């Protein structure tokens, strides 16, 4: 059924349909509407789940871990400082091989006290062992949330999945969303290492230097296996519900000489910039990265690449740009734009491409265009 919803409401609707048994969360702007809506679903009887209103995000993830290890479906949502407050526990969730699904509404980090979009929060989580997907429309937020449960709980994966949506730009925008009859798209959860409270056993005893690396390798092996699971899940989703997704969303890339790469809503707005540039005779394309973990295989041979990072690693550079450089060796122009909700229009994006200086870094609003 087609209706108008915000990104937050669409995520909450998808969570309701996926039917977690436990949701533990703490409110934070601009995510609050997700857990508010879920709490409303639970109290009105539309969602037969236990909602745990915890005292912090660290506790939210800890509660999800405790619930998940009993073999049930769990969900939480957060933003920014909330996510970083969870950080110790997000590592634990992945290490304990728990398929916890989380929505993160991307927001800048203080100070200054800023509630607007930035990806540095989620990107600081990229080494935890959790999967990360970045979405660009309300429809995609809904679809990706549904798929996240199936991917996380697949027994070849058993890792947390985080759905990322841009604060305000996507969390609060209202767009059409076509909801689906889910049917058996998400199979019943089966956690092979679930604990049974009726038959207590000891866990978490000391893991020695002869064992720990094996557990870490197992995370990586599942991360690699998740590529196939993601592909299969997205294929099955397209078959059942008609909407296609992939590791990247490519727009006019085939004959492109210069490719724009960005995450989230900037990656969608970049498509408008591509059309503008094409009209000027510049053969541009847009490759919006959706899955950042596992990192996609990108074919950028012979292309110039303009990467827009709504994030930064101080003393190093744009995080996405440097990941692409490391994986592909591509020649690229690194643009830092959109930090803390900084306004970036399709005209601005087209400007980045027109004035690109390969191999250099450009801070939008700080450095002058040449």
């Amino acid at each position, binding site marked *: 059924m087609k209706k108008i919803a915000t990104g937050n409401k669409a995520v909450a609707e998808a969570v309701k349909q996926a039917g977690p048994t436990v949701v533990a969360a703490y409110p934070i702007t601009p995510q609050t509407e997700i857990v508010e809506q879920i709490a409303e679903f639970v109290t009105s009887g539309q969602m037969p789940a236990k909602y745990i209103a915890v005292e912090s995000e660290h506790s939210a993830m800890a509660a999800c871990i405790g619930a998940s290890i009993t073999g049930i479906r769990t969900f939480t949502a957060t933003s920014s400082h909330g996510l970083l407050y969870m950080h110790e526990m997000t590592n634990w969730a992945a290490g304990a091989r728990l398929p916890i699904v989380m929505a993160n509404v991307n927001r800048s980090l203080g100070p200054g006290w800023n509630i607007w979009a930035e990806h540095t929060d989620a990107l600081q989580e990229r080494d935890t062992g959790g999967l990360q997907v970045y979405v660009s429309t309300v429809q995609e937020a809904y679809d990706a949330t549904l798929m996240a449960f199936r991917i996380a709980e697949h027994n070849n994966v058993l890792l947390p999945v985080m759905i990322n949506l841009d604060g305000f*730009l996507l969390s*609060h925008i209202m767009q059409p969303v076509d909801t689906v009859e889910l049917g058996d798209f998400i199979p019943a959860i089966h956690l092979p290492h679930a604990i049974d409270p009726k038959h207590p056993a000891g866990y978490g005893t000391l893991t020695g230097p002869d064992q720990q690396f094996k557990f870490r390798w197992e995370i990586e092996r599942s991360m690699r296996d998740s590529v196939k699971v993601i592909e299969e899940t997205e294929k099955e989703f397209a078959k059942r519900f008609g909407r296609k997704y992939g590791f990247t969303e490519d727009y006019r890339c085939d004959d492109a000489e210069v490719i724009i790469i960005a995450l989230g809503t900037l990656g969608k707005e970049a498509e408008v910039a591509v059309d503008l540039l094409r009209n000027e005779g510049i053969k541009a394309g847009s490759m919006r990265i959706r899955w950042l973990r596992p990192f996609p295989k990108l074919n950028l041979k012979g292309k110039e690449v303009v990467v827009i990072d709504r994030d930064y690693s101080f003393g190093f550079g744009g995080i996405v740009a440097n990941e692409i450089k490391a994986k592909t060796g591509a020649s690229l122009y690194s643009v830092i734009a959109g930090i803390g909700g900084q306004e970036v229009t399709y005209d601005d994006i087209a400007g980045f491409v027109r004035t690109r200086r390969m191999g250099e870094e450009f801070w939008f609003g700080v450095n002058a265009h040449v």
Partner: protein
Amino acid sequence: MFEIRIHSRGGQGGVTAARLLAMAALHDGKYATACPFYGAERRGAPIVSFVRIDDKPIKVYSQIRQPDMVVVLDESVMDVVDVLHGLKKGGRVFLNSANKKVFEGFECHNVDVTGIALRENLVVAGSPILNTPVLGALAKMGIITADSAKKAIREMFSDERNVKAAEAAYKEMNA
């Protein structure tokens, strides 16, 4: 793409008006996005919300700089905000007012939406509801169809007075 900026004060329902407009456009078979100005909203403070309507999916997230139309739900914001800022040449203005105003170079319309809301007793917590009747005026201006406007209102509100108020605005509109 048709871009609309709605001026109101926090609590007057400007964001809901944007939502209703997007819902009605969807019923018309179009694509639409609606969003508040991205920030913290305070009751009584001048706020803006935005609506984009197009025949194809909308990929733009940056703010509307050159709207095709502005809707002013509260005349008093005009004392503190330049509501015509960036409005395209020949662009359209809808004013919630009993008095006709002329802005040189723009197409101006007005209806006393507040008066209609009060007459229909559409009042919540002492404030007249403006977002449903204004939809009738916008339907008369051809932004959405009247049928879709009514459908959107009924989806969101069970009180039929909302539809009656929209119909009254449609009739009173000096199209």
